[in-house]
């Protein structure tokens, strides 16, 4: 025989459990609703999708030490510097793919920035540039040759395979791709983490100014 007070206690506890369950369910709904409302009211703007355009990539091949032009369609921003960065990023994405003809780890994030400046004259001699009088880091005029300064990430340089052929191909394909898509780019310099660096991975000289036109071969030819 169950005592009366035990029956009453059981009923009270059961009722309390049901009420607490209901309250928890209600709080969960409110939290979920608040989350949804918060997302809706976030001050973000939907990203604008840039129109897809064609870009020419000079893709390196270790097998025959060549650069081959490859046309790709990709969304490109209007700003020239951002455009250059996106194009070089796509090129490095190809190199980071498992079946790459010129395997280099890193991908698109390896290009930190690309700056376009007025190109200095090359009167100082072959391979060395002499800044023009008014080229103190100023932006380039509307027309005229440009110097592209490509700032690479330290991890890209640290993980780049070491070798004359592979480093040379990387440098030349970056230069050639820039010139193929931005014909005003005639000279290219490289920085790593914002600093000049002697070589890319022990071989290719990164202290010199590269002439972009030297890196644009006929299709499939050797650089």
């Amino acid at each position, binding site marked *: 025989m169950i005592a009366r007070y035990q029956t009453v206690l059981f009923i009270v506890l059961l009722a309390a459990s049901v009420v607490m369950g209901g309250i928890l369910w209600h709080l969960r709904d409110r939290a979920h609703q608040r989350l949804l409302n918060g997302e809706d009211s976030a001050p973000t703007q939907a990203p604008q999708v840039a129109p897809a355009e064609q870009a020419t990539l000079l893709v390196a091949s*270790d*097998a*025959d*030490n060549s650069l081959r032009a490859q046309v790709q369609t990709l969304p490109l921003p209007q700003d020239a510097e951002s455009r250059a960065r996106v194009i070089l990023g796509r090129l490095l994405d190809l190199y980071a793919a498992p079946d790459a003809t010129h395997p280099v780890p890193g991908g698109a994030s390896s290009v930190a920035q690309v700056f376009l400046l007025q190109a200095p004259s090359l009167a*100082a*001699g*072959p*391979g*060395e540039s002499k800044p023009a009088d008014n080229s103190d880091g100023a932006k380039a005029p509307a027309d005229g040759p440009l110097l592209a300064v490509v700032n690479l990430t330290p991890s890209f340089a640290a993980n780049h*395979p*070491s*070798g*004359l*052929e*592979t480093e*040379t191909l990387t*440098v030349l394909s970056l230069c050639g791709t820039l010139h193929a898509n931005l014909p005003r780019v005639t000279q290219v310099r490289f920085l790593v983490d914002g600093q000049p660096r*002697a*070589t890319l*991975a*022990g*071989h*290719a*000289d990164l*202290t*010199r100014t*590269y002439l972009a036109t*030297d890196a644009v071969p006929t299709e499939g030819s*050797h*650089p």
Partner: protein
Amino acid sequence: MLKYSPTTKRWLRNAFGAAALLVAASLVTAQSPAVPPVPQPPPAPPQPRFVVLLDAAHGGDDPGGKLSDQPEKAFSLALSVKLRSLLTARGIQVVTTRESDTNLDVNRRAEIANHANAQACLSLHATEAGSGVHLFTSSLPPAPASRIPAWKTAQAAWVTRSLALAGVLNSALQQAGIAVMLGRTALPEVDSMTCPAIAVEVAPDQTQGSDARTELDDPGYQARVAEALAAALLEWKTEARQP
């Protein structure tokens, strides 16, 4: 009548005898037909010294690229030693930038090359990428020689000769059945050299159209490359001696 002492007579007799001999000799010389001077062969021009500079890349704290079984610095040094022996055996004077695992600045390498006044400078490298032997000349545009060339672009005056040397090396390597890739590059030590200079990068040998691959650590492959380079330099020496 004069009287002479016996000593004076003897002296006079000797003097007359000597004078008569001189007169007779001069007469004979004057009457004999002119003897054409024997043409003396011109002194041989001194043979120019033929020196080859071998620069084993990297070394010391700089291991270079990572090969399958050893760092690039060890391979380049071994190839330099092997090539030096072959060239010395063929009578070619060799100067090397390093003989052991030591640190060597790129400027110091070029300094050694330029002081050696070499007729051929080879910078020796190795890689696992690609196949065969890669021959790189400086990507500097050819420029006329100047008395005081700029340090970083000194090779510009030698690019034409360097391309000719690359052609000789290419022929010899192909004759040895080794695939060759020709290219241009910007390598600081080569760009500062005032001699026909080539960067030689040895990669594993892969026969086209087959999966057969000869790795860098194969002694037979190393010997084949060294022999071909030595034969090419001997050919280059012969060409350099021709007027």
